């Protein structure tokens, strides 16, 4: 029995230009416009090159490799470098920076016993210590729990 695996049916990936998907071009364009507008506030003259470079930078940073954008990969690379450095020297400047950024430094050292710890099982009740009486009022106590001796 064979199944033809289908393309990603929950994601849009319309054709753009120069082999760049439309979605990425659109995103980079918006980023370029935002950079241009901010630059225009700071530099009323000459903001267009900023916008253009913003567009190009967004285009480059959103390039996909291994299913992740360049931006994501860079971010994780920096985070990785920071957590390893912080784990080796916790009191250093890098260590303090990692702590400030709340980076997961515990991921540098993995303890098999903790990572693969079985789930907490439901508390088992030992019914052997139940004491029952024929009549509720027998011995003046009825049905009671008996402390384990």
């Amino acid at each position, binding site marked *: 029995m064979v199944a033809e695996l289908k393309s990603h049916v929950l994601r849009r990936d319309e054709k753009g230009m120069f082999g760049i998907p439309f979605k990425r071009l659109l995103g980079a364009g918006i980023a370029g416009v935002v950079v241009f507008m901010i630059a225009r506030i700071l530099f009323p003259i000459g903001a267009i090159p900023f916008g253009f470079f913003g567009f190009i930078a967004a285009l480059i940073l959103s390039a996909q490799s291994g299913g992740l954008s360049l931006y994501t990969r860079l971010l994780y690379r920096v985070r990785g470098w920071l957590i390893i450095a912080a784990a080796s020297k916790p009191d250093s400047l890098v260590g303090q920076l990692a702590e400030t950024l709340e980076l997961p430094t515990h991921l540098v050292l993995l303890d098999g*016993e903790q990572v693969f*710890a079985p789930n907490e099982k439901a508390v088992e009740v030992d019914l052997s210590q139940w004491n029952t009486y024929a009549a509720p009022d027998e011995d003046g106590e009825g049905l009671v729990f008996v402390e384990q001796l």
Partner: protein
Amino acid sequence: MVATRSRRKEDVSPRTVLIEPFDLMMHATEDGVAALQQRFSAWLRTLDGPARFLCWQMPADLNAKIEEVTQTARQTDDRARAEMCMSYRRHYERLQEDAEFQRALCGMVVWSDEAGGTVANGIASAFDTLAVEADLPPLFEGRYTLREAPFSHLAPVGRPGGRPFWAILNSYEFLPAAWNFFRPIPPLLRMNFPMALCIDIPETLDRNKAVDAVEGIIQAYQVHLVSLRGGEDSRAITRINDCRRTLQEINQGDALHNVHISIAVAANTLDKLRSRVAEVITEARSYFRLRQEVGELLSRSVYFFSSAKSTQVGLPNTTHPVTSRELALMLAPLGYRKLGVVDGVLRGEAVGGKYPVFHNSWRDKRAVHEVWVGQSGFGKTFSLNCLLNREYAENGVPFDMLEPMGHGIHLARAFGLPWYVLSAQSTCLNPQDVMFPTLLEQTSHTIRIYETVMGRSLSGGQRENLERGLLAQALEIVYAAYRNDLESLSPDKTPTADFVCDVLSGLGEKDHIKQIAKDLADEIAALVTGSGPWAKFLNGTTTFDFGRSGRDWIEPRIFSFHELESDPTMTALAYTQCLAAIRRDSLRDEQPRVIAVDEVYRMLRHPSLLDFLVEAAKTFRTRRKKLISIDQQMSVFMEGKARLIFENSPIRVIFSQKQGMNVFREDAAFQHFNEQHLNIISALPRFHFILDVQDEFIGYLASTPTQDELRRFGST
């Protein structure tokens, strides 16, 4: 944003279930794999929360088994047994040298409100294999640290102690390709190195929402295609077609799951790890793309092999939507059984898999009976001899072998045991020998033997009932002196058949009763006394010592009936008396013992003896005596009361059954066999068999004798 079917309850606990892989070769027909896919996808459709399928593949060896037989050889005082153990040790060592064994274990994590046992039962019933709620095995033991040089990997902290380096690969893109149960996952598992595979299903989309989402994508693409001027977007057209196919499958009942694959690869050196990672990426490339994780993402990916929820793992989302029928094919590792536990004795070598299969049938308090069927010359006797040898050598389980062909001599020689040959000329088996502790049971057993001799039943009519009563009365008189302690009656003092006939002929108060008693006595006397056909065989003191003679432990015994071959009734009687003696001894202890009865049909065709066999099978079971009933055709065990023997035997060993396939096709007891099973059974070559352990295992095995076994039993 697509909403999911899951209730997003963070407090739903993960239920971890271990699943025993089965042999896909047993389903390898077009219909077989289609049925398998349908079964898997039917279960996947019911998912209403996250789930995760895991498969661990680790190098395995037979060291535990080798150590076990070595210990047994050291501890036993029996030199012959020690030598056998050492020969098994050599055999296991040779097997290990020639192969690279792996152990595969599959597991499923399901986040569900249902109890773990319920989830396990659901999986067991849907996948038709053993599934138990249990903790998942760890990917690694001890502490590991993240290292970035020379490439990102996990290295053991402190003394490695044989602990490998690990790298993890995550899928990020699935290519349009044809998947089946044989590609692309199984080739990855065939790589002979330790690895673990995770099929993570972080969400299963609600049907209506999935339809809305997919329809939304279709609409968007249609708008996009309309707006294209002078260009063509083939990917958009393909995507629309894929969406339509997905909708069709969802409307046929499939669910839409988001899936991602993680593969953890291990190696003892970094160079080897690098090359293995490259090998895995290349192997999967035409089906799905894998990314080798680095830094923080590598550490996070480790949690995919635990019971941590995908949302807690916190990896960037690179899942791919697949329908249930597609996802079912990703569970292909379930169909690749590798070396299992080495507990128990060797039952054979898996055909195709080339790994030894062990089975311990002494795990339960009660013995597990077996039924063996197969045409003559296909290796039943040889395989049985090997099994008895292994049970005796490795577990110290003695046996009683009842066989009609005279092959017992090989076993007797192998063990240096006396060979008990029952002969029409020199053997005498007294029907009055005490086999049961109470008078009622003993008289009914003896009456059964006389019924078999006479070839008629002493019940069903007025005269027959009277005859039965008179014979019982005669026997009560015969046993009267030992009424209170029947078992103290030794064989040498047991009254003989002529005495019973004398007593019987004098019974009755009224004339017509006297006449009936006299006629019955004459009838029996004509057969078993004087010059009657069974006089030598039945009228006298038993010439065999069936008892334990004061011993705590009875050594293996081999009874051959080939010298009774000419008379089937005599053979059946001999079988009955032997089994009755064994049964009597069985009641006294719970020491495991194997009782193998070849050519069972000889007993089955005598109704009164069949009742005895059925009753004995039940008694043996409770006293840890394994009964192995052997015959040529399975149909023998499926008719009438003989079926009770079959139903009390959860292990079925099936050799070639070319001539009797109808029973496997028609009988409800074999509904669990698919077309491929039946094809295998009908074409089993010599020394190949199907081992069917009820609710546990169906395997296609080949007899793999050791050199020592070949030397001993080769001529059988």
